[in-house]
């Protein structure tokens, strides 16, 4: 469970995030939806404690992220905007590296890695060096590596970016599986279809602010439109 209150972050004169508040519940997929440059990535970076907010608070499973960043990182699985893998290591070695950094025992790490490799359908890839992987294969490896410690909360920054239809579809299946397992899934995207297909709740961000927050149905109702896309456009344009 993730709770965010009044997040503010500026880079010099640029006010990237100006008072973002929302919540993401366990057993749900929450979508951070907004146009490019709306402040989604910056918000996520503050959530996974890479950046420190100028103001506001973040709690993950009730733990204050600003006071105890290491504890919070242990309960988070993160697919950041930057997905760089280690090219000279195999997929499994990439996963094992993060498992060891998370403090997993070798036996446990192997069991988790095997389970994720099976769940993501990457048995054929595991022993190969990452160099030469396709975009979809790289995202799979990056997700397996991010979730190797079985985190209760999963943050994904534009997870389907650059994926083909097949890869997108299997990734969505995988995320639904996480939801079914009671995980709190929070993803950012600028794609309408993504939230429509996946999300239980939508947080729309524009110009560093939350302009709407609710279920897809509630948002359609709030904007007075039948289509989610229209609702999205109307809500963003209505924002100050």
């Amino acid at each position, binding site marked *: 469970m993730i709770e965010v209150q009044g997040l503010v972050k500026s880079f010099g004169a640029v006010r990237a995030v100006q008072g973002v508040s929302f919540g993401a519940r366990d057993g749900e997929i929450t979508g951070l939806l907004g146009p490019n440059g709306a402040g989604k990535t910056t918000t996520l*970076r503050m959530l*996974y404690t*890479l*950046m*420190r907010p100028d103001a506001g608070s973040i709690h993950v499973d009730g733990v204050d992220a600003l006071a105890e960043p*290491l*504890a919070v*990182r*242990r309960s*988070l699985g*993160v697919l*950041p*905007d*930057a*997905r*760089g*893998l*280690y*090219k*000279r*290591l195999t997929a499994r*070695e990439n996963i094992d*590296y*993060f498992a*060891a*950094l*998370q*403090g997993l025992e070798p036996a446990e790490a192997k069991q988790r890695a095997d389970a994720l490799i099976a769940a993501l359908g990457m048995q054929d890839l595991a022993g190969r060096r990452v160099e030469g992987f396709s975009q979809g294969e790289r995202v799979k490896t*990056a997700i397996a*590596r*991010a979730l190797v410690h079985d985190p209760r909360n999963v943050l994904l920054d534009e997870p389907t970016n650059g994926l083909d239809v097949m890869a997108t579809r299997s990734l969505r299946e995988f995320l639904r599986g996480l939801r079914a397992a009671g995980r709190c899934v929070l993803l950012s995207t600028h794609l309408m279809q993504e939230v429509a297909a996946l999300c239980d709740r939508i947080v729309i961000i524009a110009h560093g602010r939350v302009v709407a927050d609710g279920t897809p149905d509630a948002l359609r109702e709030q904007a007075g439109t039948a289509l989610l896309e229209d609702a999205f456009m109307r809500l963003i344009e209505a924002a100050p």
Partner: protein
Amino acid sequence: MTPALVVYLKECRESLRDRRVLLNTLLLGPLLGPLLFVLLLRLIVSQEIERAEQPLPVVVIGAERAPGLVAALKQMGLVQKPAIDDPELAVREQRIDLALKVGADFGADWRAGRPAQVELIYDSSRREAGSSVDRLRGMLDAYGRRNGSLRLLARGLSPAIAAPLVVANHDLATPQAKGALLFAMLPYMLMLTVFIGGMWLATDSTAGERERQSLEPLLVNPVPRDRILLGKLLACATFSTTSLLLGLVAFSVAGHFMPTEQLGMSLALGPAFVASVLPVMLPLVLLFCIAQILVSAFAKSVREAQTWLGLLQLVPVIPSIVLSVVPVKAELWMFSVPLLSQQLTIMRLLRAEPVPLSGVLLGALVTMIAVVAVFLLARRHYASERLAVST
């Protein structure tokens, strides 16, 4: 397993699979110095040997007319080649360097005490023949002087009358001096080995990690950033030390191929040298590695990092140049300056001179303080938000 160890093992494993790292650490870094040394020393020495000891093959025409002269020249190193028909043409066509022609009247003139003529046939525009011509002329001069003196003595005169001026040659560019200058560079060669050995890993694991966008995912793990830094530093130092060890062994082996006796020098390049230089250099290995990591962490790309490190690697040459140009007497305070301290120590070990233990320990201590200071700087930079975000 502690996080620093996890990072260390991963960096080592990844680097062992990188051909560029292996090339630099195991081949280029360790072998560059010794190879350069052997080649340069051989060049210096071979020039000297050529001048002094090598037999000098000369075509002699009319040798039968001056058996005494030819016998004396042979004693001085001349190798008589059989006469040929047209020596002028042979020199012009570069078939021979020079020829000596004994005049037809040589025997008669010699016996009569008149100046007897020999001709030197050569082409002064051919530089490579110059030293041979000089040597033969020197031999002829020596023979002439000796016989002139004998003739004066036979007439009851002192040979000193005919030698009003004596020139003593005092060429400062002796092989010893040239060799000593070269050996003042040996510590720098070792430092360069250390530098090159760690450079690829330092740039690849910091600037490279950033450039390939793998730093942000790494920093999301619940590991304090200074542990990550420590792991990378130790991996870098391991490769650097490997490079140094291989370089020292290579120098030790190359010592057998260095014509040091001919230069009148004795160098202690044996196992004892290797065993004592290694601990002396270890604090410097750490200092180089952490400095490289700090510089690379500021760079936006591997290429930029390498540009900066290319400048940084010139810093250790300063004490080498200072010491070889201004031969100062080593005082204790000099041992407290990182780089200078190790330089002085290695020079003394090289000449098998006693090394003041207090100086070595002082050098190690100050160098380690510098390591900690640079580590803290790097840690501060690693803690900043800007580091992770590559865009």
